């Protein structure tokens, strides 16, 4: 299974969300690999991988063969970082992503083992990675904030953000992040989105200091503060994501997901 985490704008917590999806799905017993297509190369940091580790997908040019040798192990999850890459290497990877078969064969090699879930973190906005991954994904999650900028980008989500090659039956859901109901505008936008996008809003994640704290410790929120609001919200996101991918059946339960939602 392939889950693509995308957003039309940056700074919405996409990488954090992708990391916790990977953590949560791994905690449910799936073999999980988090793949980073964002040149910021920060997904790996959520899994305890040292800051100085430079290897990754783009580092030294796109892989000519199997991608598995570039996968690292972090916190029970396989992690394929973007890698510390210069401009030429980034352009090389973008070019490779536009080559038919490159992405599909690479991802297929990662998911050869049964029960594998690939969680792909995409760069913000349109990109060759978004175009290539979207057409292969079983589920596309679009992260948004409860702010005016995100609201203004909503119409474009169905009109040009995702490439035309996306299969009509493929799943797409919204995730609203960093909700703080104490703020009037934030609360009213959340209510608007919950009413307007009732069917496609998969989860609402509340702002919680446990999230940046866990990031600074390079561990998951589920581990850093398992009783926190963030851990509960992210657990709910994992459960609903797996239920969606399993055709609505109740997903495998993990005690790390909490009890609500």
């Amino acid at each position: 299974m392939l889950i693509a985490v995308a957003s039309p704008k940056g700074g919405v917590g996409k990488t954090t969300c992708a990391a916790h999806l990977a953590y949560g799905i791994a905690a449910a017993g799936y073999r999980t690999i988090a793949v980073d297509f964002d040149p910021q190369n920060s997904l790996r940091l959520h899994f305890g991988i040292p800051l100085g580790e430079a290897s990754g997908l783009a580092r030294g040019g796109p892989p000519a063969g199997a991608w598995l040798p570039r996968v690292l192990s972090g916190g029970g999850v396989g992690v394929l970082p973007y890698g510390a890459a210069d401009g030429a290497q980034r352009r090389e990877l973008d070019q490779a992503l536009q080559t038919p078969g490159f992405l599909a064969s690479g991802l297929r090699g990662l998911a050869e083992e049964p029960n594998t879930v690939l969680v792909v973190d995409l760069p913000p906005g349109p990109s060759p990675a978004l175009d290539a991954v979207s057409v292969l994904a079983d589920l596309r999650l679009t992260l948004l904030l409860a702010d005016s900028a995100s609201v203004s980008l909503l119409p474009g989500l169905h009109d040009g953000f995702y490439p035309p090659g996306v299969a009509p039956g493929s799943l797409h859901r919204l995730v609203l992040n960093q909700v703080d109901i104490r703020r009037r505008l934030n609360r009213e936008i959340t209510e608007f989105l919950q009413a307007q996008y009732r069917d496609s809003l998969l989860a609402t994640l509340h702002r919680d200091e446990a999230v940046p704290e866990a990031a600074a410790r390079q561990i998951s929120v589920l581990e850093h503060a398992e009783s926190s609001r963030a851990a509960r919200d992210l657990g709910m996101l994992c459960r609903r994501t797996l239920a969606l991918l399993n055709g609505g059946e109740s997903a495998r339960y993990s005690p790390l997901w909490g009890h609500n939602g």
Partner: protein
Amino acid sequence: MNSYHEIERFQRKAGQADFPFRHTGAPAFEHRETGWSLIDQVAAGVSVSPSTPSSAPVFKPSIQVPVEAAEPADTPPPGDEQAQDAALERFASLLQARHRREVEHDHPEAGDEQSLKQLLRRIAVGPGETNESWSTQC
């Protein structure tokens, strides 16, 4: 904070042992000083090795910005340099003459030889007061 048992259980559930992936050594958070792994690594001066091989071409931006740019000096307006120098001299002499005229007008007794200190005292105490009274005030 989770107990060791809980962490171990989490790792077992996550199937960590099943992964043939390359390990990057002990998790960074085990060596923390401040408790925040990322801060510790930055504080320790962790750097990523340069991604560009030495033989690879180096891409330089079309606009070069000097790293140690000097403070911008007072740049003279474009024009003939000699004419500017002459103008500057005239301007300086005019300023000196004006200053001398102002001092002579306000304090006729103040000559070129009068010290700046005395002049300032006169200005401070105002007309009609003596240096002695000023000194007692201080």
